[in-house]
């Protein structure tokens, strides 16, 4: 737990009506976690468990005089939580269930802007529930659903039993492109381990980095993968005429020749795809392992050998969809080998969602003054479009990591633990509307000492 000492953690639960918020809340309340939880409900579901405090409230949004978006707070929460803090019965955790159409911004900002709440509570995390079957109906015309995704620390893709695997893959890729920092879990009946949603600690970017090293890199460098069960021997990857003069491919040994087996290898494949390519021409061989092969197709269609030494499950990751090249795998007998499972990875540029994430990760130390000047300017001009930001920074002249998070123009940061064995680096992420990746990168890099 990295929640600031002594402060009561607050979890905000967002999601459209019917996405499963009440189901999740009931799970949290009935789970035997030994915590005293107070619930503030803006939407009236069937929550009710003895020994827990449930308070209903009507959403009241207060904008302050200067019209600044970050000064918009939730009056109902200030009033109710203010009263809660005076009580003798103390709570270990506070859950706020918002209405389906709530903007998470003012809820989050309340914990930065109100003096009394800021000193007593800390925003532990924003958990957004998504109805996997119906969310697509809202995606394009609902600002709220996009904001709820953009603000989330954790997203539960719920009701997975009502959607197909490939619909879930598409949805997950699209959500990931909007908010690359959020952890996405697929759930049925909102069934999820409590430690995945409670006690996240607002600052815990590190954990996200550790679990998912590619999260700052939401674009997949390949479009397709197939899982095969292969015997020792020689195979051929037969590539026909296609739109490009070359195609990258890598072949990995996987645990099982099915979708879960392939999914486990995706992360590794992304890493292999960031390595320099090994160029091969027709007749040359692709081997399983950590090499990225670039198949030269300049001379037209070609057959590339694939050498399999051990019997087992393998996944082939290709830069383009094999259909575009009429490509397939052939065994020594000249028979096509059908994949037992396939996955498609939509390249990021196909999504035109205006909400996106920009991740920056770079070694080196920052100049404090330059960074402050840049961030101040950035938030003053673009703060309304930056929903959230989080990061771990390395400042020159400090042997401690600096961690921060922000909501719109509000920024909260502090020194963290000492830099240990790991190389000093900066990792940060912006989630927002109409973000300019190049400008953000250039601006940040100019702050390096």
């Amino acid at each position, binding site marked *: 737990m990295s929640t600031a000492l002594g402060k009561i953690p607050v979890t905000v639960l967002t999601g459209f009506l019917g996405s499963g918020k009440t189901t999740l809340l009931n799970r949290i309340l009935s789970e035997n976690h030994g915590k005293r939880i107070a619930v503030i409900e803006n939407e009236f579901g069937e929550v009710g468990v003895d020994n827990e405090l449930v308070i*209903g409230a*009507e959403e*009241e949004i*207060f*904008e*302050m*005089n*200067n019209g600044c978006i970050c*000064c918009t*707070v939730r*009056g*109902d929460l*200030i*009033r109710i939580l203010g*009263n809660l803090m*005076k*009580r*003798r019965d103390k709570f270990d955790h506070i859950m706020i269930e918002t209405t389906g159409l709530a903007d998470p911004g003012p809820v989050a900002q309340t914990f930065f802007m*109100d*003096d*009394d709440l800021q000193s007593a509570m800390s925003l532990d995390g924003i958990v957004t529930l998504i109805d996997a079957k119906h969310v697509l109906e809202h995606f394009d015309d609902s600002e709220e659903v996009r904001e709820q995704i953009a603000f989330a620390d954790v997203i539960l893709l719920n009701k997975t039993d009502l959607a197909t695997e490939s619909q879930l893959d598409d949805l997950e890729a699209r959500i990931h492109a909007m908010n690359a920092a959020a952890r996405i879990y697929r759930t049925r009946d909102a069934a999820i381990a409590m430690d995945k949603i409670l006690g996240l600690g607002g600052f815990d970017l590190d954990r996200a980095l550790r679990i998912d090293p590619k999260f700052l890199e939401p674009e997949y460098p390949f479009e397709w993968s197939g899982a095969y069960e292969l015997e020792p021997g020689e195979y051929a990857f037969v590539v026909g005429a296609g739109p490009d003069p070359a195609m990258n491919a890598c072949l990995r040994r996987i645990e099982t020749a099915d979708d879960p087996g392939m999914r486990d290898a995706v992360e590794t494949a992304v890493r292999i795809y960031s390595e320099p390519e090994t160029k091969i021409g027709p007749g040359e061989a692709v081997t399983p392992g950590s090499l990225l092969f670039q198949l030269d197709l300049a001379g037209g269609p070609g057959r590339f050998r694939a050498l399999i030494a051990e019997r087992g499950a393998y996944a082939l990751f290709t830069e383009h969809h094999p259909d575009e090249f009429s490509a397939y795998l052939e065994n020594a007998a000249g028979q096509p080998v059908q994949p037992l499972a396939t996955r498609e990875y939509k390249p990021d540029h196909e999504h035109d969602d205006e909400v996106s994430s920009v991740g920056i990760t770079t070694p080196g130390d920052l100049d404090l003054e330059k960074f402050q000047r840049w961030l101040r300017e950035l938030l003053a001009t673009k703060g309304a479009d930056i929903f959230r930001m989080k990061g771990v920074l390395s400042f020159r002249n400090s042997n401690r990591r600096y961690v921060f998070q922000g909501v719109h123009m509000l920024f909260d940061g502090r020194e963290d633990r000492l830099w240990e064995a790991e190389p000093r680096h900066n990792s940060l992420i912006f989630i927002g509307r109409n973000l300019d990746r190049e400008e953000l990168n250039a601006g940040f890099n100019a702050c390096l000492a």
Partner: protein
Amino acid sequence: MFGLKGKAAATVDVRETWRALLDDFIIDLAWSPSGDRLAIATVDGRVSLASFRGPPRLLGSHAGGASSIAWRPDGQALASGGLDGWVRVWDPVTGAESQQLAAGGDWVAKVAYRPRGGELAAAAGKTLRIWNIAGETLYESACHASTVSDLAWNPDGSAVATTAYLGIVLHVRGHADPPRKLAWKGSSLTLAWSPTARFIATGEQDSTVHFWHVKTGKDAQMWGFPRKVLELSWHHAGNHLATGGSDTVVLWDCGGKGPEGRSPTMLEGHPTRITQLAFQPQGELLASADADGTLLLWNPLRATRPAAGRMFLTEITRVAWTPDGKRLAIGERAGSVAVVDVGA
């Protein structure tokens, strides 16, 4: 050049005469008009009455918590409001609950009797209700933009002012017209009429104090506070306003043309944030209290140093002067209530 500022005032004698433990956050205290009994509301909902012969007597309770308590000016009844949405009227002699009035919302924020009258006003949710002495509804208004945070009668009893998001609403007694609004784009949390009813001061969510000239509707904003300002108290002559919102008591001179363009007086002495401010009803002393349990008494028109001080164990959550200004009740977060005699 230095005038009287910076000098210590003549020492004030403070002597504790009574103490009781109520075991929960003291959310409100109210002295009977004759100053011989003290009504106490705790955050857990209990309404108690101390007559200083033995421990306080429990009158009853609001489920979910109590918020506010007030005495009828004739001393024959006291009213309490709570999170159960009810206003309860108590007979201070028998201790019985004589009336139960539905306030129209989930939480009752505040109850207040009309000065020199028997009418009772209460705010709950977006609704203001006023009842007569028999408990019949005389007036009801739900014209507020959000939950009402505070209400107060004009000192002459001619109107009730309420605060909510987007400013003040003035409900004038006996007028059927829509109430008058003093609009401000902000969330007003607490209000205080000047004793002459010329001004209303409000403490705002955005860490400012708003200052309204009631007759003209002209307003001014006082800024520079590090926190939201929930503590406001007027000197009885109506020319000086004390504000909290920080570790420093700030005294604004509102005489003549008002506070605009004048530098306020800063009273420094609290080690931490101020939680309560209360001018003596008829005298010159100002009581201030903080989150560490420090109580200070000032004679702020004469000196910028405290005239007396006293420590309590936990945060002071409420202070209340007797109407004659000779005694002060102090309530704490941990539930202790003390009474001190204040003498020159």
